[in-house]
């Protein structure tokens, strides 16, 4: 299918991109295009201007920045998966990124693109919420920082304004934590029906700290703080974990679609959370 006509810009700096966005009436940012291009081709959106961030070198790559990793918004999923810093300090993100779609999508699609797209069935937002990431948002009036719990506002809606750009994501280091992303799909390249991100710090025989977040259990990622609290201090064994996570889906508002209704998703979330926590503890 053929998209409607649009003007295409591929700036090489963030400032230039911001200028283009502020000048355009109806612009869309292309950050890999793995969601936007299909939307354009189906003519579900017909923006007048496309600003492609693919040539902005400063938006790519992962570096250490004190007790956090500074991830450029245009870092492709495949780079995240392969990056030794991510593997060491934020393994959850790499594990979840490995489950995204197929190799082509993982090479084209970007971390920041997936976050700003904010698909409730997307995997990256959940990992960012689980690990308490911070989001650097640049605008013509400067840069601001937004916390994970404030970043995802609704379905496909984030704190990034129409003339702003997500430039960097700061992921607090979770060095030495065990993590697991338990994704439930019917076919491999599907969006998550439900998925659970879990990261644990084990001290001795018990869980010292826990991060748990759910994918596709509402319009935005759901951080399961009550479950996190209940996990602290218990031994990571099947019965105890299952008991601690039993009401993880309480109060969630998952969708109903061809893959399952809301009740089934709540049931799945409970089963998968138990599995995710046990797998995180094991590795």
């Amino acid at each position: 299918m053929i998209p409607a006509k649009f003007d295409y810009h591929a700036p090489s700096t963030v400032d230039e991109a911001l200028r283009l966005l502020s000048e355009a009436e109806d612009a869309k940012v292309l950050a890999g295009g793995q969601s936007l291009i299909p939307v354009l081709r189906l003519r579900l959106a017909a923006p007048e201007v496309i600003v492609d961030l693919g040539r902005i070198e400063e938006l790519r790559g992962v570096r250490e920045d004190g007790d956090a990793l500074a991830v450029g918004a245009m870092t492709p999923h495949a780079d995240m998966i392969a990056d030794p810093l991510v593997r060491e300090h934020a393994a959850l993100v790499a594990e979840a990124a490995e489950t995204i779609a197929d190799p082509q999508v993982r090479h084209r699609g970007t971390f920041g693109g997936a976050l700003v797209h904010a698909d409730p069935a997307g995997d990256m937002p959940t990992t960012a919420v689980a690990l308490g990431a911070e989001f650097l948002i640049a605008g013509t009036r400067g840069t601001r920082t937004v916390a994970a719990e404030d970043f995802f506002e609704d379905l496909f809606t984030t704190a990034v304004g129409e003339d702003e750009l997500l430039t960097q994501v700061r992921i607090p280091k979770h060095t030495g934590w065990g993590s697991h992303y338990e994704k439930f799909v019917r076919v491999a390249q599907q969006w998550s029906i439900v998925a659970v991100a879990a990261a644990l710090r084990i001290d001795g025989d018990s869980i010292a700290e826990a991060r748990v977040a759910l994918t596709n259990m509402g319009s935005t990622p759901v951080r399961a703080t009550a479950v996190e609290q209940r996990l602290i201090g218990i031994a990571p064994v099947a019965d105890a974990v299952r008991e601690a996570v039993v009401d993880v889906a309480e109060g969630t508002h998952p969708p109903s679609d061809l893959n399952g209704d809301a009740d089934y998703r709540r049931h799945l979330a409970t089963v998968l959370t138990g599995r995710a926590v046990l797998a995180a503890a094991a590795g």
Partner: protein
Amino acid sequence: MTVTEERPTTEVGTPRRRKEDQRLVTGRTRWTDNLQLPGMLHLAMVRSPVARAKITSVDVAEARSAPGVLAVITGSDVADIQGSLPNAWPVAEDQKAPPHPAIAVDQVSFAGEIVACVVARSAAEARDASELVDVEYDELPVVLDLAQAAADTELVHPDLGTNVSARWVFDSAEACSGGNVEDAIQEARDGGILIERTYRQQRLIPAFMEPRSVVVDPTGEQTTMWSATQIPHILRLMLALTCDIPESKLRVIAPDVGGGFGGKLQVTPEEVVTLLAARQVGRPCKYTESRSESLMVAHHGRDQIQKLTLAAKQDGTVTGLKVELLADMGAYLGLVTSGVPILGAFMFNAIYKFPAYHFACTNVFTNHAWTDAYRGAGRPEATYAIERLMDELAQEVGADPLEIREKNWIKHEEFPFTTVATLEYDSGNYEAATAKARELFGYDELRKEQAERRERNDPVQLGIGVSTYTEMCGLAPSRVLGALSYAAGGWEHASIRMLASGKVEVVTGSSAHGQGHETAWSQIVADRLGVPFEDVEVLHGDTLVAPKGMDTYGSRSLVIGGIAALRAADKVIEKAKVVAAHMLEASPDDLEFSAGKFTVKGTDKGTGIGDVAFAAFHAHDLPDGFEPSLDAEATMDPDNFSFPHGTHLCAVEVDTETGRTTIRKYVCVDDVGKVINPLIVEGQLHGGVAQGIAQALFEEAVYDESGTLVSGSLTDYLVPSAVDVPSMVTDRTETPSLTNELGVKGVGEAGTIASTPAVVNGIVDALRPYGVSDVPMPCTPHRVWTVLQAAGASGGGAA
């Protein structure tokens, strides 16, 4: 399987890599959409967003003045010349069928129906302008549910007076091929076993890889159409009849075609519209559908409700089967829409020899996209039903599913066997295939593991699915098609041209769309003529090059078209023998032909067939009266179908906590008779089994209550990829078919027919301890979990 690159002693039976694969796999080939012609225009279709409505107005003014637009064509513009799309299979004398316009004129009957067509200089301009066509619809109530449709409370086509297109009945008592099924049912009720079930064959979408594409060049004496079709020959004839063009003025080319699965066995509205548009503007026109359009309007498959009654004795001997089908035609009848369920009528008895059978099918219109042939066409539905029922019977009797099948199947020494559905099975050995499959599978060990898992109440249960299928290949003996009211014959044509240089051209009327005819036909002819494989060129898919043919579907190509090529080769040899005898100064009767060489018996005097071909070419010294050509043609009309069979065994693990099914082991032992190329056979089985698994687990075309296709993209219509399909063990037994001289049977649909019931039987087997006796397809995790919840609520539970 090793790939042999050394020169084999015989081509037939050698696992040759396919000669067509490099161009097909890289895509650097003649796909229809790759075609560019000077001055070519592009089409975009305006399609109805609603399932049923009166068209109150079509305003094309804005579209017509849009940049690059040359024409906008509406239904009323072409109402007098577009004819009605053909249905070649009126299954009943009183079959009802509505007019089937390529462009809807005053009403639409399913979502996606074409209401206008934009012709523009570029595809982008055509697409842009198509959004400017303003159509007003007066929406009408939709008819979607099959049972409600059959009840005629709301009519899809009020002019027909009913939603029932046709009713078709077979009864073994009336056909004198068996007893009365009602008697068998009564006896079963009085002390035997009666199993009554209703199964749903969900609606499927063929989802071939290459979307349909058509190019029409109206310039020149003949109008030429390139189309991504399975049926260039049938298409040519049908277009000539539909659009009132002399057949001789139409040339149809199916260049390389990227899959079809029956989905390109059609005369499509898009082909007719492109033809009309090109003739109207007098320039070449191209239309290529988008994936969304393909999923929505390229014909769908299956969609039947099967009401089944199986009668048996207490010991598990089946005494009769009654089948009542409701089959969804969709909004119109396509080329063979109405015949698809009828093809299944001959297969419900499968490999079993029960004595009474009744089949009744009601073909019903709804406001869905129309259905038609899809890989297996009728046979997968029938096989699913009987193989599920055999498992239910085994459960009732308390016997192993393989045991209950063996009790009822035709023993190898009982062939030839005339079935209760009147077919004559020429050969088969179900015992051998089953024994081999059982061993490769490790059947007994897996049963043991299953018992252990049940014992310890494992949340992941193991199920073992069995499917012992047969099918009918080689569609079809023309006299049978005549008896079933099909409009054409089932023969196939081939010709062989012996070139002066010794190279050989084989022209086949059976045009491949991924099957590997070029390789297989080369192997057959290379062996017969004794020429190198590389020296054989197989030509097909162009009515100018291959003027006669019945095309490719129904696992017919090899058993009919391949045999035609073989027979043409034999005729070449007969002609060449006369010339060779003249060259060798011997009598033709004294010559023998082997490995490409004519030799005078008992001497070393001889000449190769290439030299004979050259002698026939220059014609300087031929026998008196010999026509200077070795070329020959043959038309094969089969006497009977061929009947591949096999045993598929599938071990599934069902996670009772999530409902997820994982296929752990899949073993199939198929008997497809003699094998021309084992690699092609394996490839067909891999793809076929994957497609059958897809029906069992993944795929379903879903409409909402307004008649909109919800599963309208590959995000929602889940075609499995390689990682979603298990590694499978494929093996064979070889019981040659007696219905053709190569002993081949056909393999194009076997995997799809066999695998769906194997998977579902496995899932149900895994869940038997919970009181589960059925899971509707596709067996999604959500459905399995829901079935388990319901079973738990009704007091079931693991042993």
